[in-house]
């Protein structure tokens, strides 16, 4: 049984392992169920707004800036849905998928199977992170697409009046939705990095998921305390809702850029911690 010939075999540069990881993430029933739940959120929101505005004399009332716009144009349901799901639902599903990443493999013992294949530990982390980001983007897109479909079914469509007052054609507005989805997915990368790190610390996926979700909530709470406003610019959640700037004309890139930089710092810091932990860890599960 000689293996020398196969070792020299042409290396396939098709990212088979990444493809396998994506298949694993996107065929997992639990992960699909979370996407279905996320798709349901805009439907609930749209129905609630539709039913409440039917009442004669309803004055629109308070709420996020986008909600008042929805009755004018269904496309705003997409932005509103993201505003509603971003603080809790989206970070929660990303916590679940990222907490599962390494801890899940450790709990089934497949971590050792992969490492002896061999999959380098750095490569494993990179592929895992890519899988989480892909899922985060899919989750964001699910909310957006579902909201557009529901919005178009329940509310008027047509050229979109932006928050800043100008009007752009529907096609350009759809592009804005995609930009917003990309920005939101990028913001969720910080949650993904925290989750990935926590996931390297334990062999119990549920513990990693809960810890990640709690960390995100703690950061959101800190972000809501005005007395410590000097640290707010360093908290990732401070910049999450800045995607509203993408729905203005001209687009305000200041906060967007700040948000991306803060997220990148979180990804680098927690990614490095995850790497330092996993590459030195004894795999005894």
């Amino acid at each position, binding site marked *: *049984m*000689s*293996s*020398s*010939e*196969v*070792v*020299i*075999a*042409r*290396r*396939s540069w*098709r990212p*088979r*392992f990444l*493809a*396998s990881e994506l298949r*694993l993430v996107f065929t*997992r*029933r639990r992960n699909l169920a979370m996407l279905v739940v996320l798709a349901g959120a805009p439907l609930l929101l749209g129905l609630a707004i539709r039913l409440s505005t039917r009442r004669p004399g309803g004055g629109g009332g308070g709420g996020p800036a986008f909600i008042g716009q929805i009755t004018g144009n269904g496309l705003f349901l997409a932005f509103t849905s993201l505003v509603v799901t971003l603080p809790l639902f989206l970070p929660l599903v990303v916590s679940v998928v990222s907490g599962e990443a390494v801890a899940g493999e450790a709990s*089934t*013992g*497949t971590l*050792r*199977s*992969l*490492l*002896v*294949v*061999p*999959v*380098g530990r750095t490569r494993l982390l990179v592929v895992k992170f890519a899988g989480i980001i892909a899922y985060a983007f899919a989750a964001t897109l699910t909310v957006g697409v579902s909201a557009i479909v529901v919005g178009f079914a329940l509310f008027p469509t047509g050229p979109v009046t932006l928050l800043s007052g100008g009007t752009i054609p529907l096609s350009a507005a759809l592009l804005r939705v995609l930009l917003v989805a990309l920005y939101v997915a990028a913001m969720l990368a910080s949650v993904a990095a925290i989750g990935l790190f926590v996931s390297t610390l334990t062999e119990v996926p549920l513990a990693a998921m809960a810890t990640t979700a709690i960390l995100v909530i703690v950061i959101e709470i800190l972000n809501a305390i005005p007395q410590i406003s000097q640290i707010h610019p360093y908290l990732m959640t401070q910049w999450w809702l800045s995607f509203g700037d993408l729905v203005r004309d001209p687009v305000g890139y200041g906060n967007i850029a700040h948000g991306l930089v803060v997220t990148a710092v979180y990804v680098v810091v927690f990614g490095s911690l995850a790497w330092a932990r996993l590459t*030195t860890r*004894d*795999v*005894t599960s």
Partner: protein
Amino acid sequence: MSGPEPSPDVAGAGAVAVADDDTAIRTTGLTKRFPGGQVAVNAIDLSVPRGAVFGFLGPNGSGKTTTIRMLLGLIGPTAGSFAVLGRPMPDSAGAVLPRVGALVEGPAFYPYLSGRANLTRLDAADRSVDARTARARIDAALERVGLSAAAEKRYRAYSLGMRQRLGLASALLRPRDLLVLDEPTNGLDPQGTREVRTLVRELASDGATVFLSSHLLSEVEQVCTHVAVMSRGRLVSQGTLDALRSVTTARVRVVTADTAQAAGVVRSLGLADVAVAVDHVSATLGELASERVTEALVRAGVGVRELVVERPDLEDVFVSLTGEGFDVEQ
């Protein structure tokens, strides 16, 4: 070396030894002390010759699995060094491990995937293989362990024996130079155990080195050429099977009606531990050839009905080395 098309069943004849030494595994003072202070593996010097079927014996908790985990780079040693297939580890893990098929501490797979999907994932993770042959190699591996019929079943629904077979299949996804099998017959029925033995012999006859850990002595005794015995984290013996057997001395038993005279002859030959029973005499044979005993008895006119040399089986050797049979060691 420049084979045109990697094939899933490359013949062993053309194997080129690229190593600078003839050991498949060599460790020097390999030690693992866990953070709690417990020394699981204590300065072992293991030497596994290429082409050997090497039985790695020891009671539960004697450090076998910890050693295997170190050999595969899953955990880092706290002292000592080791080489696998002639390359220093863990530095060469990326180059060495594709040539090593491993089954560590029982099978581990994704419960919600089918057997085939599990193998597909492991194969996809292996950069050293050709994706185009994946299907054929996976089919061949499933066939070889007798799992073809259950390939599409979810792993969750597999019996322990089927799981173990899938673990073996994952080690056979591509040709290997070394197989490290940790308790491969755990959970298998007698038929399955026999199949694994046959498989191990096949792999060895193809030229692979097989490193087989077990606490089942009968298994090791039947397939192995070499044996090492672990006890409480230490390597208490290693060598060929025959060398290990000779560690404890053989006894000679003479069945005769004339026990008193026979005992006298045996004593006069200088044999120790002479025991006299109603119809036989026995003594430690030591270095003496049994022919000399026969000759002396016949010369003395003792009527010998039967003369037997009793060699200890491996289990006796094992117990004498580890001192305590199969109790869990702390």
